[in-house]
Structure formats: structure tokens, C-alpha cells
């Protein structure tokens, strides 16, 4: 028999039970007997929610039950499974309600909680909405052993998951000495499967209270629970038909069911999961419902605070010195498949700090493996760069550098306090999980101190670094799907918007396309948003309709349009934190670039600060443009005006900074060798006359170019 038929059979069973109980109650109390659940303004809330009916008497309840039956259709379609499943939940509510028709306190004197008051719904609802309680589990029927039951409940408790128990598992919890009740977040709801009616009632009331969902709007309720209520079910073998039917309802509401029952069971991806090993229930369940557990504390024997960021550990205070320049040391983040990462596992491979000579050298590598559904390998370097500030915040640890040129010192005091190699793992685990919650589901740290292994691993790490660098270099504006904007500077330059592309980094020099991308994924409402590039207007100047729309939106209307590659036609604006300003030098038809550090005059007759005053503030000034140093050697720099061949003047120091890359670009674009030597600087020219003379002498390519205007 198929899964569908088991659901239909179970739902018929639940209905029969409900009808019997209701008939008995009516014959005992009469049709007009009041039907009211205690301390709620939402009637029988499953029925109220799904059918929009306000039941106040047993007679009305009988009418409602008839309508419930009409929803329990049995066509071999998924839709029927869902409506029958929810019908089962409503029938369960009817069964429980008949108890309350007789007395408002049917569970007094038992271990069971029964109905939840509106106050309890709100009390649980608030932390569920805020995700302070990351979700709740409904555990049905006894686990294979008492120990497994206790371990499972405690495991959920440790992760802050609210636990509802139904049936035999309650007795196991009692025998295991687990303290239960609403305040400790473990609630024994009732002895029979129809106790689920109380839990679904709670869910639907949450939807009405917190989601303002309209009673009777069936789809809105399932929609709400799917998106907003992070619940799931653990059902132990053997699972009865009636439980399977309840499971159908759970799945219809978006709650996955995890079971260890393999007989007569059919796995449905993301919804019905067969996990034979009950010790893996928690991890399987959390992953199925996409629940991430927040990590807040860092388990280390010394303090962790930004106040220690600037600590310097002197040689005499140092227990060990970890120095990538002398030993094989490195740091590496790898994104891995889910089965290769065990959350919060910290492995030490090799001797610990105490085995190394006092005040001497130590070799050490930190490999952080992360898995996440939204993790991308592009985030690896973003995380890695943060190691520096994470580890520096540890009292008694000094950290500099990255990749395989790291240098870490552990102070004697930290060592005395008990700081050991695994604590590097604890710090990185906690920080990566908490700061990158949006993309990291699991994180595992391996600390290697075994010299022999390190040599090999370092070589592997270098391959990974090279691969990343290659990717960065090969990335062009054409090869990516989207750009990003950045409005980090708007607090002091209200109308400025940066458009960040692979070949044009932010003008402050600090935000690359990858940084912007990571910022966006990690903080989806933050300062960097996706800017599509689907509707190009002019490839030459780098104009896009999508980019213009983004600029209008994020400048709050102050800017209409920008181009990415032109200095004359709608050039990109600047906030004021540009590393460099580039301005047209009319005598030569070229441009002059001056960096912030250069205080002298340029051949334009203006200094950096004079140019800054007219270029900054989000104002478009054709002929002038702020940009990052890195952009100078880009093939997109002034592309619309002919590219880097327009550069006629730069301060000497800036020339030296960009020399190699600029020469390379010039060679590739124009086949010119040593292009930088053709560019004048403050030593040869500070006015237009001297500049022209110099350019003529060097045969600068700009002299053969079209006039700029």
C-alpha cells in the first residue's frame, strides 16, 4: 500500500474517533451545551483558522465536523493528502475539545499539559518570531530506548529548541528524570496522538496573532506556518496510519517529518525523511527545516573583546611564536560538502603548545572547513581576512598577516590561563558561525602542528591561494552577471552611490566586487545591493539602464545616470574618500591623476584638495572623477576616451605603486613597453608647458589621439 493510502486510512480513523467522541458528548450534555476552550479568544482555533467557523456549542461543533469530513478527500493527489492531513489535525482538535466540553481542566492531576492559553501562545510566539527560540519539535511516541529519548530531548534543549512530547516518549522522559513544563521549554502535551490538536491550535493562533492572517483563509495559514513557524516532527517507529495522517497535515503546513521507521514508509525530499540512526535526528531535522543555531559564547579560558585588539606581545612575555616567514604556518578557509563538515568539531593534529619550547618557535596551520547551502567559495578569502581581527581580540594573542605569512604570538599569561591550540579553533568557530550566520551552516576547524604534515599542507594551501588569485585576475565586467552598489559613505556624502564592478573597485580602494558581493549576501539589507546589468545602453561608455535606475534609487533621486568607463559623459560621482582624482589636462588632451597623499600642484593648476572640493559630494563633474588606485591599471579605465593611454601625469610615488600592472595593461592594450616611463611626474612637470615638452620627448601615445573635446 502506498503512502497516500496510509494517510487516507489514518485520517478516516481520526475522523471516526472524533465522531464517536462528539456523539457521546452530545448525548451526555446536549447540542446546546457550550463549547469553549479556556483562556482563548480564538474559539476552537484550528477550525476557526481553516474553516472560518466560530464554534461555541457542541451542536456547532458537529456541523464543523461534517465540514471537516468533506475536506478529507481521497483522490491519489498530493493536494488530497494535504487537505486530509489538515482535516486530521482538525479532527484531533475535536476529540480533545470534547474533553473540555465536560470540564475546563481535563488534564488536572496528570502529567499532561493539554490546551495552551492565548497567553502561552504569545509567550512562546514572541521568541519564535524573533528566532530567540530557533524552532520547535514535536516528538511522537517512544524512542527505541529511554536513553535515546533523554539524549534527544536534552540535545534539543541545548540548542534552544522548544520541545513538545506526545505519547510514550513522555513516560521515557519522566523515567529519565527530565524536568518538564512550559518555562523549561519541554512540554508533555498529551498521551494520545490527538494531542497534536493542541499544538496545531497553537500554530494557527500564532498565525492570527502575529501574522494577522484572516480566519478561513486556508492557504494563508499554511503559507504563514511554512514561512514563519520553524517546526518539525520526530516520529518514532513504528509509525501508525493515524500518525502518518497527522504527518501529512504537518507537511502541508511546512513542517518536515523525520522518522526512523523504514517499513511502509516513502521518503519525500525535504518533507518526509527516513533517518534510521536516531542519534542523527537532531542534525537531520535542523537541516531539513533550515534552522541555524546561534552561537553566542566563545569557550576559551581568556577574555575576548575588541579592547584587546591593539595588544602587543613582546618577546619576553611570549610563550610561543608562530611565524609563517620561518616555519610552515598558514590559515585557510575551505568550503566543503555537508558530509565533510561536522559542526563544532575541533581537531588538533600534532603536539599542543605545551610541547613546544618556552619562548620558542612553533609551527601551526589553521584550516577552517565550512558548509552552507548559501556558501560560495568566493567568501573564503573574505572570512580569512577576518581571522586577523577575530584572533587579535583574544586577550594575550597577537596576530598579523594572512595566508602563509601569518605571525601569531601567544603570551605567557594566556598560556598560564590555559590557552591551548584548540582554542584558536573555538574562537574561529564561534566568530564565523555568528558573523556569517547567513551563509555558514556548519563549521569545523583543524589545527595542524605536525611539522611533516604541514609542509605538504602548505603546498596544497598555496595551490588554493593561487587558484583564487587567478580567478580574481580573470574576472571582468563582462564575465559576471551582476554588479553591486555601495552606499557606505552616504552618511557624509548623501547623494553619492558607488557602482562596484570586478574591474572597477570602489573609489575608496577598500571595496572590491567580491567584498561588495559578500557584504550583500551576508547582510541582504545592508549597504551593498545587487545591481543588474541586463539592459546595456552603450558598451563604449559602460552605460546601463539598470545601473541608472539603481543610481536614482540609492541616491534618493539626486543622480539620474552614470557611466562606468567615461570621464566626460556622466562620470561616476565621488563621496570624498577617493584614493585618487583624475582630471582632464586640456593642453595634452590627456588626464592627470593625483593621489590623496600628494600635496603639490598638478599641471591642471590645481592641488588634490582643490580638485577634491569640486569632485566630491556626489556631484557629477564631467572631466573629473574620483577612483581607487587599483582602477588605474584597469582596461576599463577611461575606456570611452581611449583608455590608459590618456594618462599623462601622476605623482612619482603613485607611478611606482602602479608601475608593474600599468605597464602590463599598456603592453596588452597597445603593445607599448614601459608605458609608465612616458608619464610625467612632479619632478619633470608641474605646468602644462613642461608637461607637453616631456610628452613630446617621450613620444607619448596621447599626442596621436583624438582631441578629448
Amino acid at each position, binding site marked *: 500500500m502506498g503512502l497516500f493510502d496510509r494517510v487516507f486510512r489514518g485520517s478516516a480513523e481520526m475522523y471516526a474517533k472524533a465522531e464517536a467522541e462528539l456523539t457521546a458528548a452530545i448525548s451526555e450534555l446536549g447540542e446546546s451545551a457550550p463549547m469553549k476552550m479556556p483562556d482563548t479568544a480564538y474559539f476552537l482555533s484550528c477550525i476557526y483558522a481553516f474553516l472560518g467557523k466560530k464554534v461555541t456549542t457542541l451542536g456547532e461543533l458537529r456541523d464543523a465536523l461534517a465540514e471537516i469530513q468533506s475536506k478529507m478527500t481521497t483522490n491519489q493527489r498530493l493536494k488530497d493528502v494535504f487537505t486530509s492531513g489538515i482535516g486530521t489535525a482538525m479532527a484531533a482538535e475535536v476529540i480533545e475539545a470534547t474533553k473540555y466540553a465536560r470540564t475546563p481542566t481535563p488534564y488536572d492531576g496528570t502529567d499532561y499539559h493539554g490546551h495552551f492559553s492565548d497567553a502561552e501562545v504569545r509567550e512562546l510566539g514572541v521568541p519564535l518570531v524573533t528566532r530567540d527560540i530557533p524552532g520547535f519539535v514535536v516528538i511522537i511516541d517512544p524512542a527505541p530506548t529511554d536513553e535515546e529519548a533523554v539524549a534527544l530531548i536534552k540535545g534539543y534543549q541545548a540548542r534552544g529548541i522548544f520541545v513538545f512530547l506526545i505519547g510514550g516518549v513522555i513516560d521515557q522522559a519522566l523515567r529519565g528524570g527530565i524536568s518538564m513544563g512550559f518555562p523549561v521549554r519541554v512540554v508533555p502535551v498529551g498521551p494520545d496522538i490527538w494531542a497534536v490538536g493542541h499544538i496545531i491550535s497553537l500554530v494557527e493562533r500564532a498565525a492570527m496573532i502575529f501574522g494577522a492572517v484572516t480566519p478561513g483563509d486556508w492557504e494563508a495559514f499554511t503559507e504563514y506556518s511554512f514561512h514563519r513557524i520553524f517546526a518539525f516532527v520526530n516520529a518514532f517507529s513504528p509509525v501508525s496510519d493515524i500518525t502518518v495522517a497527522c504527518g501529512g497535515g504537518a507537511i502541508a503546513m511546512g513542517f518536515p517529518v523525520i522518522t526512523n521507521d523504514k517499513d511502509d514508509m516513502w521518503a519525500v525530499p525535504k518533507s518526509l525523511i527516513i533517518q534510521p540512526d536516531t542519534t542523527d535526528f537532531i542534525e537531520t531535522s535542523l537541516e531539513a527545516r533550515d534552522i541555524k543555531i546561534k552561537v553566542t559564547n566563545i569557550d576559551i579560558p581568556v577574555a575576548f573583546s575588541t*579592547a584587546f585588539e*591593539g595588544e*602587543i606581545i613582546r618577546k619576553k612575555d611570549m610563550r610561543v611564536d608562530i611565524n609563517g616567514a620561518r616555519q610552515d604556518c598558514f590559515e585557510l578557509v575551505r568550503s566543503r560538502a555537508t558530509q565533510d563538515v561536522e559542526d563544532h568539531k575541533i581537531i588538533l593534529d600534532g603536539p599542543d603548545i605545551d610541547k613546544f619550547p618556552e619562548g620558542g618557535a612553533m609551527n601551526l596551520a589553521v584550516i577552517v572547513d565550512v558548509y552552507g547551502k548559501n556558501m560560495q567559495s568566493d567568501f573564503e578569502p573574505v572570512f580569512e581576512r577576518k581571522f586577523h581581527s577575530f584572533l587579535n581580540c583574544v586577550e594575550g594573542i597577537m596576530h598579523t598577516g594572512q595566508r602563509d605569512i601569518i605571525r601569531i604570538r601567544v603570551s605567557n599569561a594566556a598560556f598560564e590561563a590555559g590557552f591551548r591550540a584548540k582554542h584558536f579553533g573555538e574562537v574561529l568557530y564561534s566568530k564565523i558561525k555568528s558573523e556569517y550566520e547567513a551563509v555558514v551552516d556548519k563549521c569545523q576547524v583543524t589545527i595542524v602542528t605536525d611539522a611533516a604534515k604541514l609542509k605538504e599542507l602548505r603546498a596544497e594551501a598555496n595551490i588554493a591561494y593561487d587558484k583564487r588569485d587567478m580567478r580574481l585576475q580573470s574576472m571582468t565586467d563582462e564575465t559576471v552577471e551582476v554588479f553591486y552598489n555601495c552606499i557606505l559613505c552616504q552618511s557624509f556624502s548623501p547623494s553619492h552611490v558607488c557602482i562596484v564592478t570586478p574591474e572597477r573597485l570602489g573609489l575608496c580602494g577598500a571595496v572590491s566586487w567580491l567584498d561588495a558581493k559578500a557584504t550583500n549576501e551576508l547582510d541582504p539589507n545592508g549597504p551593498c545591493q545587487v545591481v543588474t546589468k541586463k539592459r546595456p545602453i552603450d558598451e563604449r561608455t559602460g552605460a546601463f539602464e539598470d545601473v541608472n535606475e539603481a543610481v536614482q534609487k540609492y541616491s534618493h533621486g539626486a543622480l539620474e545616470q552614470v557611466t562606468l568607463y567615461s570621464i566626460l559623459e556622466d562620470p561616476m560621482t565621488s563621496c*570624498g574618500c577617493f584614493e585618487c582624482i583624475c582630471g582632464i589636462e586640456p*593642453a595634452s588632451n590627456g588626464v592627470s591623476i593625483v593621489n590623496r597623499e600628494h600635496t603639490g600642484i598638478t599641471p591642471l*593648476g*590645481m592641488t588634490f584638495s*582643490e580638485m577634491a572640493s569640486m569632485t566630491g559630494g556626489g556631484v557629477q563633474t*564631467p572631466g573629473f572623477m574620483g577612483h581607487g588606485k587599483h582602477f588605474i591599471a584597469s582596461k576599463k579605465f577611461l575606456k570611452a576616451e581611449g583608455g590608459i593611454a590618456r594618462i599623462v601625469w601622476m605623482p612619482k610615488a603613485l607611478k611606482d605603486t602602479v608601475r608593474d600592472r600599468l605597464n602590463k595593461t599598456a603592453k596588452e592594450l597597445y603593445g607599448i613597453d614601459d608605458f609608465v616611463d612616458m608619464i610625467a611626474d612632479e619632478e619633470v612637470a608641474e*605646468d602644462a608647458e613642461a608637461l607637453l615638452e616631456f610628452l613630446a620627448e617621450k613620444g607619448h601615445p596621447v599626442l596621436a589621439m583624438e582631441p578629448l573635446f
Partner: protein
Amino acid sequence: MALKGLDIFKLTPKTNCKDCGNPTCMAFAMKVAQGAVELDKCPHLSDDVKAQLGDATAPPMKKIEVGSGDDKFTLGGETVLFRHDKTFVSKNFFATWVCEGCFDGKLPLIEKVDYDRLGERMYVEFLNVVFTGDVEKYKELVAKAAKTGRGIILDVGDLDAAKAVIDAAGSRVILNGANASNYEAFSALATEKNAVLGVSGASLDELYDTVAALEKLGNKNLVLDVTGDTVKATFANAVQLRRAALKDNDRTFGYPSIVNLHKIAQGDANMQTALASLFVLKYGSIIIMDEMEYSQALPLYGLRQNIYTDPQKPMKVEPGIYPLGGADENSVCVTTVDFALTYFVVSGELERSGVPLNLLISDAGGYSVLTAWAAGKLSAGSIAKFFAEFEIESKIKSRTLVIPGKVAVLKGEIEEKLAGWKVVVAPNEAVELVKFFREFKA
């Protein structure tokens, strides 16, 4: 739409002759575009070009100068309605309303409220001297008022009286008396005496026509008195004038404004404080009040200084040692940046803590802590340099220095550079400082 610098450059001789005082034609053109230099400074522009550029480069709101030379007052010249669109350029001025009978009583306060705030002199810049009927007495009063060294607004609708006193008013004078019926004669007088002419009208339409007529006479040296019968009308006038000029490009209303609170809130000092604040934000160029008490000056001048700060150039405080809460050479040192807002907030919290502390302000380019740090303006090196320049170690005996929590990262480096100093990291937020210092053990 204002012309871009590049468009102007195209029409210059491109000879870099430097006759305009700028090293290149490009620099000149860019400054013209910014409104920082007049087109006329270039002697080589043809009349055609001048005519072509003149209209486009003329600011939508005229810059009016009261007086000349170093002590002139500059009004108007605004290009935007909101400071975030660029910046406001000419701060508003305050005036005290004086009359024959009340001048002597008001004089001591006029002289008393005269102080410095962040390098700016705060005082009543103008006296509005009202004519009450007796020309001789008026002349005496104007002479007395002029002796205070303030700019003079002659609040007079009588041409003969105006003629009689204008010479006594000194060189910085606004003749505020022109209206639809007398503008020709007043304009002639103002022009003759090189005075700015104040114009008013019974309605915006009348004012508009009068200004247009004055412009036709060639007088564009005007300020417009927008004071109406009520608070509401006055506010509406002030906004509409400025908006017409800057947003709707109607240059007829492109002049600075006078708002006379004596007329709409006479005798109610609190209401005048409220209204003056309103008009500092919304388009009053000269705000006339009955008096300027110290209690009014403190918020109003502070507000004005804030609103007229260029968003690109934050206010700075002078580097130095600021002893707070009765601090002496043994008191602990606290350091932060010279960004005025940071200084005010931090010094306020430190004073509230009641703990004697030496606040050390070093030159950090006028940036906030994190911005200064990111820009390299606040570093262990910059602090060490400040310590050397200001000879801190010889002036202060304490060897404890508290640094901002946001630059905790500098602690080690500062300790390296300042031998013998104990560097302590403060909390991240200023609001936590009071608690921090009350519990602080040096």
C-alpha cells in the same frame, strides 16, 4: 541647470595666461562653475561669450554684500534649497530691533553677548534702527547705533528721514523702506549712498512687481523683507521666495530675505527663539529680534553654526589640552579627535562624570574617530607627534592615557611610542563614558 566647468572651459582662451589669478584656464573655469569666481575676472573673454555664459553662470540667488572690504557682511548666493544637495554658503545674521526709547536699555546686552564658538564670533551683527517720527532724534539714534560697530538696517519708510540719517549709518547699511509706492526714490537714494535696498510688499505679487521694476531701474542690490502680517504668512513668504529662485529659476525673487520677528511676535522672547530657529533652517537671511539674551544666543548661534557647516568640511576644534571637571596636572588624560561633534559629545559626557580629566585633542583632520583612523589621521604616530608638539609630558604628571574604544587596536603601538604611559581603552560609545570614569581606577 548650472553649467559644468568643462563647458565653461571650452569658451575660455585656453592660454593659461594667469591674468585671472588662476594658474590655468581649467582651474578658472572650474571655479566659475562652483560660483567661487566671477566670470569678469577673465579679461580675455569676448562680449559674445560673456553674454552666452553670463546668464548661465549667474547664480540663481544673488550674493549681496553689505559694506566692502574685510568687514563686509555677505548675504545670499545660495544655490540649493537643502544643504545636503551641496551646502549653504552665507550664514544668516541676527539683528536686534532698537528704537529711540529703548536703545540705551538694550545696549549693554548687545555688547555683552559677543563670544567665540569654534573660532566663529557670535554676536548680533546688525541693529534694526526704527524710525518713530522725529528725524533729529532718529539721526542721533542711528549715530549711536553705528558706533557699536554693527551693521545698520534703517527701518524707515520716510524718504526725508532716510536721506537725513543715511550718512550717519556708516558704510554697512541696509535701507529698508522701499515699497510699491516709493521704490524709485528709495532706489535712487540707496544707489547714491551705496546702500543695500530693503524692499517689501503687501503681497508676494506686489513685492514681485516692485523687485522687477527695481531691476528695470538697474538696481540689483536688494534684500527682500518677507515679514507678513502673521507667522504663517511670513514663513510662507520666506519659503516661496527662496524656492521660486532656486527650484523654479525665477531670478526676480533671487535675493536674500529679512524676517522681522518684532512685528510678528513682539515681546514674546520664547516665541522669538522658536521662530528664529525656524528661519535659520528655512530661509531667513537676516532675522530681527527684540533682543538677543545669552539664553537665546546659545542655542541659536549653535544651530546656525551647525546648519551652515559645509557637509564636506566638518567643524573642527583646536588641538590642545582641555582640562575638564577641575582637572590639574595629576589628572588622567583622555584623548579623542578634533571633529567638533565628537569633541562636544565626549567633553559633555566627561564633564557629567564629575571626574577631573584632561581631554587631549590632537589634529585628526576634523574627522570622527573611525574615519580619522581609517584615513590615517589618527594613529599612534599622530598621537605621539601631538604629545611632542604640545609638550604633554612636561605639562602633565599623570601617565595614564585613555583612548577611544573604537581604536583599541592602537593601544600597543601607542604604548611603544609613548614610553612610560599606561594606555587604557575606553568603551565604544560616548554614553558609556560616565559610568566608565566613575568606576575608573587609574
